[in-house]
């Protein structure tokens, strides 16, 4: 049995309450952290090799290290705007382990000398927001939030801030604009948030899963955390497996030592005894992989070398009845809907992409139109203001490259040829 971090208390009674969390040792890591002091905490985070779990996998200790030394006030923002298609781990961490997250946030806030921390949670997670607000209230009454926390002389306010339906707010600078009470549109970088973030002050933005690791790292030590994974991909990670599998769900596994095939087996394998046609690791933004990639380890570099990314830790499995033109259309529609409208390549590009994919899916696009797809995407990828527009091209183009005949067979077919052939076979 592998050692677990995020879900190690799974099944303990009353874990969503303060009393239940304290019974399994909750908030002892915060006491320990305060005794250690900010530098020692940062050193443990560095030793842990922890990398951001929101998608970009940036080393957490390095991000923290970018804060200018003597510039105050500083802010900590927790990115709980989880909305990457296929990703539902942060929801699980908030619903089942809310106090573990709060403890991680408080440890980080103390380490970063922050007096104001915010949890930015997407608007759709209304019940999760209320659950977190209740947890913050409990933590406040116990003296973990507010003035002079645990007699340390350190004050920290913790506010749960609800968004209102905008995928773009998961981008860290758009999140900051939204938190400031504006339209959630990304900012030009540099300056990076570490230098000029919320209210123009130094700010760290970390993902829910990233910070949920902190209580373990502080209490067990960064080296022990790192050793759970491999040198290049330290620690564990909560992966979300969904799509055409028997038992979709979240699974915490050691990084580097686990393969996609292991994850697929944990989820009960491909459903209905069918074969896998393709998979999308990392979430809706990431490139498609095929059955030939199933034995790749969950390692940042190995997956990057295969032309994709572990992204936000989602794995979507598609069986052999799947029409990839349909899947790509769905994703492109999503990006069209969520484009914030700030830059032209994304705003217009996602529109053209989506119109084209709808015609292709319906079997009424010509080959000449399909030939435009690569051109549209080339004018988006790398030319958009933020990654939303770039990633709006990754799945569709990688799917086109992997299954060119499937895309071409839709041209002028009058309907979806894949769905037709599956219907005949069944």
């Amino acid at each position: 049995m592998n050692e677990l971090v995020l879900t190690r208390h799974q099944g303990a009674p009353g874990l969503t309450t303060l009393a239940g969390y304290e019974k399994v040792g909750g908030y002892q890591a915060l006491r320990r952290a305060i005794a250690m002091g900010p530098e020692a905490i940062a050193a443990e985070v560095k030793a842990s090799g922890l990398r951001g779990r929101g998608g970009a996998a940036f080393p957490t200790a390095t991000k923290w290290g970018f804060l200018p030394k003597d510039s105050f006030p500083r802010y900590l923002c927790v990115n709980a705007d989880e909305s990457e298609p296929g990703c539902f781990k942060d929801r699980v961490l908030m619903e089942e382990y809310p106090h573990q997250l709060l403890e991680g946030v408080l440890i980080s806030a103390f380490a970063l000398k922050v007096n104001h921390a915010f949890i930015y949670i997407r608007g759709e997670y209304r019940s999760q927001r209320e659950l977190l607000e209740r947890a913050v209230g409990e933590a406040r009454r116990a003296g973990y939030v507010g003035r002079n926390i645990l007699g340390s002389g350190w004050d920290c306010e913790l506010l749960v801030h609800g968004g209102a339906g905008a995928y773009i707010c998961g981008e860290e600078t758009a999140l900051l604009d939204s938190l400031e009470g504006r339209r959630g549109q990304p900012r030009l970088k540099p300056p990076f948030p570490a230098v000029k973030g919320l209210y123009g002050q130094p700010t760290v933005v970390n993902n829910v899963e990233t910070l949920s690791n902190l209580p373990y790292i502080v209490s067990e030590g960064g080296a022990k955390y790192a050793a759970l994974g491999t040198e290049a991909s330290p620690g564990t990670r909560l992966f979300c497996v969904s799509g055409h599998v028997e038992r979709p769900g979240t699974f915490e596994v050691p990084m580097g030592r686990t393969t996609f095939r292991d994850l697929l087996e944990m989820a009960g394998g491909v459903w209905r005894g069918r074969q896998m046609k393709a998979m999308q690791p990392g979430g809706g933004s990431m490139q498609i992989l095929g059955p030939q990639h199933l034995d790749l380890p969950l390692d940042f570099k190995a997956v990057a070398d295969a032309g994709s990314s572990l992204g936000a830790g989602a794995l979507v499995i598609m069986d052999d009845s799947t029409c990839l033109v349909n899947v790509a259309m769905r994703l492109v529609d999503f990006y069209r809907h969520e484009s914030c409208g700030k830059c032209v390549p994304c705003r217009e590009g996602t529109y053209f992409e989506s119109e084209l994919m709808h015609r292709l899916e319906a079997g009424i696009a010509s080959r000449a139109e399909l030939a435009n797809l690569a051109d549209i995407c080339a004018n988006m990828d790398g030319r958009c203001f933020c990654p939303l527009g770039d990633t709006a091209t990754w799945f569709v183009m990688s799917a086109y490259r992997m299954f060119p005949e499937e895309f071409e067979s839709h041209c002028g077919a009058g309907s979806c040829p894949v769905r037709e052939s599956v219907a005949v076979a069944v």
Partner: protein
Amino acid sequence: MELPPPTGAETRWVTEAAAGSGRLSDATLTRIREMEARYPSARSAVLPALWAVQDELGYLPPWTLEVVAQELKLLPGDVEAVATFYSMYFNHRPGRHVVQVCRNVSCGLRGSDDLLAHLQAELHLDEEGNSPDGAFTIEGTVECLGACGGAPMMQVDRFSYENLTPQSALEVLEKVRVQTDGSGGAR
């Protein structure tokens, strides 16, 4: 399927009079002022303030944007810019229950299109997704709702219903209608 207990926001009944009165309730105004005091900058309270208004009235009539602007000492345009950007703020009155049917990849792979089509047909939804009796507004273009482990799923107000079939989704809505609206739909 067990329904979660109804809460205030789900059972709220909005009267035309309240939405057109040009006045927010004292409770909502108090909530807005409390939020304003909790942030380092008053402007940060815009989103929570709009939520407070929408919780009371069910949507954001234009005059409420001016009230929020006055409370937070902003220009009405600042508030309107926010209200029109985020998809969960309504500028018109939705049905008594807002239903979001996720149709992103994981739900799409497991039949969400059929589910939505079934609801559209059985509930006689109009083009905006409203049922004629005012009970539901059903949205089929929403962000991935982060419940891919229970796909296909829908969110009714703030509650998730997962592992649905077209039939069970309809049953859920019929139960919601009876449980929270009493007689079965008639206003």
